[in-house]
């Protein structure tokens, strides 16, 4: 096939323009050559081993802001929290102005909290609820999360669909999910089965409904992390076990579980360290007015701060409570970690 040749006719004005532009371009090029000759010659390409100073400057330039942030929002916050625990804030109003007074009260806030923990039945109940929530998450939540992760890792039927449904609660706001869950428990299920509203009546029943929510909605990210950890297990190992006649259940206990153990251990330790901060969604369910029978320590401490956030008078008590619980949790976490490390076979793959 012949290509049609098309030659654009250049007018006299066009010729003039192109000549002018060429002249301008040439002038700029000459200028750049002149500047290049004047400036000192460019150094040789950098050798990473030679630019140690530049490397250090870059290293610290990257770290400086994160370290300042850490110094303020972690170190200073915790030191401040420590000091808080030994203080007392009081407010006096005179002639329309409120004066804030801070005084050092030694261990008064600590003794108040410790007395409550051992003597106040409400506080004992909150403590008990925190342990129940942790126990349920550990024995039901974690066990099912590992099993579900195994299901997804093996690519059994419907894996793609289940990955999405398991992940859904992690991406939907707990405010929305609890809004829906509450109305389903309060209105839809009673209308369907002719039962009493589930979030009314005995405290035990209400607490069970709240804890059940946490289990149903709590799989998301842990299943994802577990199944991704399992997917790093070499296929050759699994193939070999299969050729030796290993069943799916045996494979789970003898290969999958030991080789994904470091990830499971990480989540177990994070779980223990969150015992006293876990609010178990009680605040989202009931706002500031939850019955004591369904409160956890995490909810209680958040509620103390939230309800008195306008002033500082209850903050020192909350800080003392937090410090006391931190002092209890740290050794528990360390001991748990020691024993959990012992279970690790330390297999490299």
């Amino acid at each position: 096939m012949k290509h049609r040749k098309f030659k654009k006719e250049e007018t006299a004005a066009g010729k003039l323009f192109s000549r002018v532009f060429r002249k301008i371009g040439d002038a700029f090029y000459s200028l750049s050559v002149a500047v290049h000759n004047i400036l000192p010659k460019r150094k040789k390409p950098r050798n990473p081993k030679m630019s140690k100073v530049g490397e250090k400057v870059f290293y610290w330039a990257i770290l400086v802001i994160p370290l300042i942030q850490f110094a303020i929002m972690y170190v200073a916050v915790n030191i401040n929290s420590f000091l808080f625990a030994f203080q007392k804030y009081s407010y006096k109003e005179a002639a329309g102005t409120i004066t804030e007074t801070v005084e050092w009260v030694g261990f008064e806030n600590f003794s108040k909290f410790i007395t409550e923990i051992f003597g106040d039945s409400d506080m004992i109940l909150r403590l008990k609820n925190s342990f129940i929530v942790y126990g349920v998450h550990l024995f039901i939540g974690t066990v099912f999360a590992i099993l579900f992760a195994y299901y997804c890792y093996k690519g059994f039927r419907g894996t793609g669909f289940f990955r999405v449904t398991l992940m859904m609660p992690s991406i939907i706001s707990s405010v929305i999910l609890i809004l829906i869950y509450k109305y389903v428990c309060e209105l839809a299920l009673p209308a369907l089965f002719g039962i009493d509203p589930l979030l009314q009546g005995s405290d035990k029943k209400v607490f069970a409904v709240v804890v059940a929510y946490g289990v149903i909605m709590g799989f998301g990210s842990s299943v994802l992390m577990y199944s991704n950890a399992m997917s790093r297990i070499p296929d050759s190992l699994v193939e070999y076990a299969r050729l030796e006649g290993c069943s799916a259940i045996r494979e789970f206990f003898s290969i999958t579980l030991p080789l994904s153990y470091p990830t499971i251990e990480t989540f177990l330790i994070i779980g223990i360290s969150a015992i006293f901060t876990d609010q178990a969604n009680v605040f989202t369910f009931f706002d500031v007015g939850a019955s004591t029978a369904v409160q956890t320590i995490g909810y209680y401490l958040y509620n103390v701060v939230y309800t008195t956030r306008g002033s500082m008078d209850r903050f020192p008590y909350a800080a003392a409570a937090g410090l006391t619980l931190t002092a209890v949790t740290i050794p528990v976490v360390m001991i748990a970690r020691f024993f959990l490390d012992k279970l690790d076979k330390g297999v490299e793959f």
Partner: protein
Amino acid sequence: MKKKIGPLEIVLGLVLLFHAFLLIGLIFWALFNSFKSADAFAMDPLFLSKRMLDGLATVGEPWFYPQNYANAFKGVIQYIKIDGVRYKVYLPEMFWNSILYSVGCAFFATLTPCLVAYVTSKYKSRFNAVVYGIVIFVMVTPVVGSLPSQIQMAKRLGFFDSQVGLWFMSATFLGTYYLVFYGIFKGLSWEYAEAAFIDGASHFKVLVNVMLPLVRSTFFVVMLLNFIGFWNDYQRPLIFLPNHPTAAIGIYFSSRGGVENSLFGGVPLQLAGGILMLTPILVIFIVFREKFVGNLTVGGIKG
């Protein structure tokens, strides 16, 4: 050859099916009832019964009431006080606050662990062990009740009630994502960077043009996960952003039932507000679901 179905697959498959049924059932119930009129919902909080339809027919009222969605924009309201003057904040402004809060916080909460993980995994320094140790220490050392101190610190430094202040507060390298990025950077060959150095690239250019593009997929997933977390979070803005209520706060308080809610349609209106807030996240999740489910791994925390 067909794959044999074992007992483990059957049992777990059934449990997973039940779990999926519960979740989808909840969402479907909310979506359906968000289109009902308040009267229709009061007569039948499940779906559509003949009794409800007959009851509504006698008063000539339709059950289908999509106006709930338009009303949610007017009916979900938060009150703020600036210099003693009370202002109303409507849902569109709350959405804008949510976008500012979630995008800003998510970006800095992703960039910080990524950069710190990069330098501590790729540059030789004794300080690397200190940074890694800090991360592990903070992960396994539970600090309970530092919220009062955080509030005081935020007030003193001007971070309180400031979006930029919360971005700074979120720019932490502590947490699981540092380990995620650390693992990935450790596994990346340094030869790419060396080739760039030989061509005259600076450390900054190597970071921006060579190393960050190599981890962009993980960066994107972590940022999306962070974005979703911040978008859904209502407790931190509730305390630290009293005059910039986010959509999550608006929906939270509307679910407690305000005067406006009863005027504009009760439970269906609250459900419509919830569905509105859920939609952007659900769209992001559906579009990027493949990225969500396959890009993150966390190892052990032996330090």
